[in-house]
């Protein structure tokens, strides 16, 4: 049974601990002096063992006019150094509309480039959302495959005359979501019992987003000490921008871009972080009210650096 098995696995994950021999390990989304935090709307450019649990979203009125609450988790396991497999699963509650599980989402991702002096890193991935793994009638009845690229750039390499800009960093993500079926058909019946065939187009969607970040931890460690309470030295101010533009098999009404702008704050501790962001829809097709999203994120490679949970399945680290 799902819940029993999952609980047992969860307990095993939590209980796993062992002493391991000394061997150097590399970081997750760290390139040179820059630490790219885990972000909520788009992915960070790193690959590491990590767990987002939970990610909670509340939207008072979504694009369909329903009150929406989402809860999900995401787990990433490195297979070899810089190559990881992520699994994301979540449930949505709508009022009106009921509730149901979304389809299981997986992503194979490879961090292929890190220029340490220039704090630039990039990764590529293939995301897949699998049909028939969610609640029938609630999740799409087709697969979706999305080749993805993530990049990140810190500005710590600017000259010291531009110190004010050096704590900034940007990340970006681009992907193309291609459904396995061009359209979805269903039969509906009116009050007289007459059947009609409904055909919905499943568009190919270009997803594009970026983040702008200002890191007080970076400033404190590389530019000038940050005074005041200690928590300030853990804070990253961030605004995320995430958009979706239909580019193929576009439904009637044309290619309307939807998306959100998400200003927020991230508190980065040594082996975890917590983030809270507002969800501001860019147009009525994206939502009708400002929502909120929060996430608790664990860096398993920091928590269990030389144990199964925190290191690659094969090959260790260089």
């Amino acid at each position, binding site marked *: 049974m799902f819940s*029993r098995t999952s609980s047992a*696995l*969860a307990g095993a994950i939590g209980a796993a601990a062992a002493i391991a021999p000394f*061997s150097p390990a590399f970081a997750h989304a760290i390139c040179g002096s820059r630490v790219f935090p885990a972000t909520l709307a788009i992915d960070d450019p790193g690959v590491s063992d990590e767990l987002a649990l939970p990610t909670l979203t509340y939207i008072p009125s979504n694009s369909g006019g329903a009150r929406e609450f989402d809860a999900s988790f995401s787990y990433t396991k490195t297979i070899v150094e810089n190559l990881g497999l992520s699994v994301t699963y979540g449930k949505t509650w709508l009022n009106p509309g009921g509730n149901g599980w979304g389809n299981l989402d997986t992503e194979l991702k490879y961090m292929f480039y890190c220029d340490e002096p220039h704090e630039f890193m990039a990764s590529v991935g293939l995301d897949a959302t699998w049909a028939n793994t969610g609640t029938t009638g609630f999740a799409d009845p087709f697969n979706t495959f999305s080749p993805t690229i993530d990049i990140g750039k810190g500005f710590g390499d600017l000259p010291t005359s531009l*110190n004010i800009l050096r704590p900034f960093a940007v990340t970006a993500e681009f992907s193309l979501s291609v459904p396995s079926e061009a359209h979805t058909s269903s039969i509906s019946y009116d009050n007289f019992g007459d059947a009609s065939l409904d055909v919905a187009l499943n568009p190919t969607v270009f997803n594009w987003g970026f983040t702008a970040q200002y890191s007080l931890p970076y400033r404190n460690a590389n530019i000038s000490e940050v005074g005041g309470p200690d928590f300030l030295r853990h804070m990253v101010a961030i605004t995320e921008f995430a958009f979706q533009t239909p580019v193929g098999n576009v439904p009637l009404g044309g290619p309307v871009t939807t998306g959100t702008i998400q200003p927020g704050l991230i508190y980065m501790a*040594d082996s975890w972080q917590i983030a809270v962001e507002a969800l501001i829809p860019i147009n009525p097709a994206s939502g009708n009210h400002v929502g909120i999203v929060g996430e608790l994120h664990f860096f398993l490679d920091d*928590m269990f650096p*030389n144990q199964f949970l925190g290191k690659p399945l094969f090959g260790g680290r260089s």
Partner: protein
Amino acid sequence: MMSHNPAIGLVAGLAFALVASAASAHALLKTAVPAVGGTVTASPKEIRIKFSEGVEPRFSGVALASEAGVAAPIGKPSVDPADDSVLIAPVSQPLKPGVYTVTWHAVSVDTHKTQGSFNFTLAP
């Protein structure tokens, strides 16, 4: 008794893990003497860097250079006997006034690598 709710089970397991595991992560710079971006009036006898975690001095290093990029003599780093999260590198000779760049790399006791650099000014 084990919960039948997977989310509760996982949160409980991780909470246990957080409590049970020793605090260990990347060694990130917390404070330094001379201070990051600070100004001193006397030539420092050593560079002290306080990290968020304990560090391995055998795999860690500190370099010092003038604004012109000329390396300043600096000794082999060691950790404070009372606190292995403090890396200390002796400055072998008095420095001339100017802006200096400290470049460091560290391997934390849990083996994660980090690096960074900062400037300080020695006033005339």
